[in-house]
């Protein structure tokens, strides 16, 4: 070691800040539907003719308030893109390898990102049909929709 660095040390740190994020009125309804009804809802911008999921209060394009235009989406959809996550990370919801995919649900125009399970990662393909599996225990998060599995 460089003599200059002798007896130098690093101090361990950690950012651990308990925090509460307001989910918003639109987000709350979406998450409560997942948890209590096991249903996935999007919101439709009638002006742009587009169904968004995750939902939002305001259309990003035309600034219309779209928060009351709820559309029930199918619990099945198509994988439009995916990756096999092969690295570890404390922020990751699964041990590697696992599949993260963009899934376009029936009735939605924008795909949502979620975990795909019940299939070997090597066998996952774009175009594959998958169905939502809901969590047995409530998490009060998007993970009330636990993952998707091939139909």
């Amino acid at each position, binding site marked *: 070691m460089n003599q*200059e660095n002798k007896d130098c040390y690093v101090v361990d740190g950690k950012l651990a800040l308990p925090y509460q994020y307001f989910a918003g009125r639109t*987000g709350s309804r979406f998450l409560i539907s997942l948890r209590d009804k096991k249903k996935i809802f999007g919101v439709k911008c009638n002006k742009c003719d587009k169904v968004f999921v*995750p939902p939002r209060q305001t259309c*990003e394009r035309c600034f219309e308030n779209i928060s009351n235009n709820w559309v029930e989406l199918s619990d099945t959809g198509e994988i439009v*893109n995916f990756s*096999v996550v*092969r690295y570890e990370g404390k922020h990751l919801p699964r041990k590697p390898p696992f599949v993260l995919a*963009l899934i376009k649900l029936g009735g939605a125009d924008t795909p949502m*990102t979620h975990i795909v399970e019940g299939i070997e990662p090597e066998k996952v393909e774009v175009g594959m049909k998958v169905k939502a599996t809901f969590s047995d225990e409530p998490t009060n*998060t998007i993970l009330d929709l636990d993952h998707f599995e091939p139909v």
Partner: protein
Amino acid sequence: MANRAAICAVAQIPFESNLWQQRVQGMVFPVVKSIMEQTGVSFGGEKGIQNVVTCSDDVFDARTISDNGVTDEVGAHYQGEEKVAMDGVNAIAYALACILSGHDDVTMVVAHCKESQSEDRNMCTNLAFDPFYCRPVGLDYLNLAAMQARAYMDVSGITDKHLAKVVELSRKNAAENPLAIAREPVSAEEVMKSPMICDPIRDLHVYPVSDGAIAMLIANEDRCREFTDKPVWITGFGNCMDSYFPGDRNLASNFSLKRAAERAYIMAGVTNPEKEFDMAEVHSSYAYQLPMWCEGLGLCGEGNGGEWIDGGGMEKKNVNPSGGPLGGFPIMVGGLAGAAEAVLQLRGEAGKRQIYGAKKALAHGTTGAAGQHHAVMILENK
């Protein structure tokens, strides 16, 4: 109001993958000192710098108001100081606005990032996503980049072999850059054998964990000659932000990059980007991004990325002579490192990697996941 602004000096510390023995302040101070020594610029008073533009990220520094940590080192004590928490090319643009508005006649840009401080930079970038829908499923810059790579490779004819070539060439360039990290050559075969870490992204397709700092002095036309005989003019800038949710974006479309480039080209009077630049530094932190960004910038034809690499496009167009991010550029500092290389090239000070007669260069920086935001800058020495 000033008519033009020029970059008068650049300073960079050699980037490293683990500068554990250096505090962030210790990374920043040498580049600021270097700018002072190169140009004789001072701080405060009528003639000195009265306003400094910094560039850093709170999460990577694990503190809020990350600029506060370096206030003294950047000469901002009792001065104006403003922070840009985006890629450094945007910090140059902020300085440009300070100059062109007449608010300042000389200012300094200072950027730093020490990626190695966090246990895992993917944990940092997971925090760039919304806390309700994307963070809980584990999205980070690497895995969204992987999905963008898949989407792009589908439409561009880019294969694993092309990506290997990009890494091989980038490393070859980095080998000539004493400030780069990944300077050992790798062959395309070795790249293709490196482990898949997030399909279709392999380990060697990803930029190394990088620590470093850069500073630049920027002045108006009236005063730039006080600091240099070789001013490099900022003649164009444009940026654009794409949608936030990954599913709202067409990941393969280069939507925001095309708009950013268009704005920069209009400002600089560039009509044929494929022909007009002597070199380009594109902020490609993953191998697939190099041809993808070059398509978005119009440096090669759209959907032609694969053919372009096969035909030696990267070498012919002098893309990333510094080695680029695959040689090791920290996040936030990345686009600024590219711009610094462009300045050296336009001044004829790029050593072994000098592109002779370079007059017009493009520097590009991207912020956010999978190129959500892009910034494009045109630099010229005339």
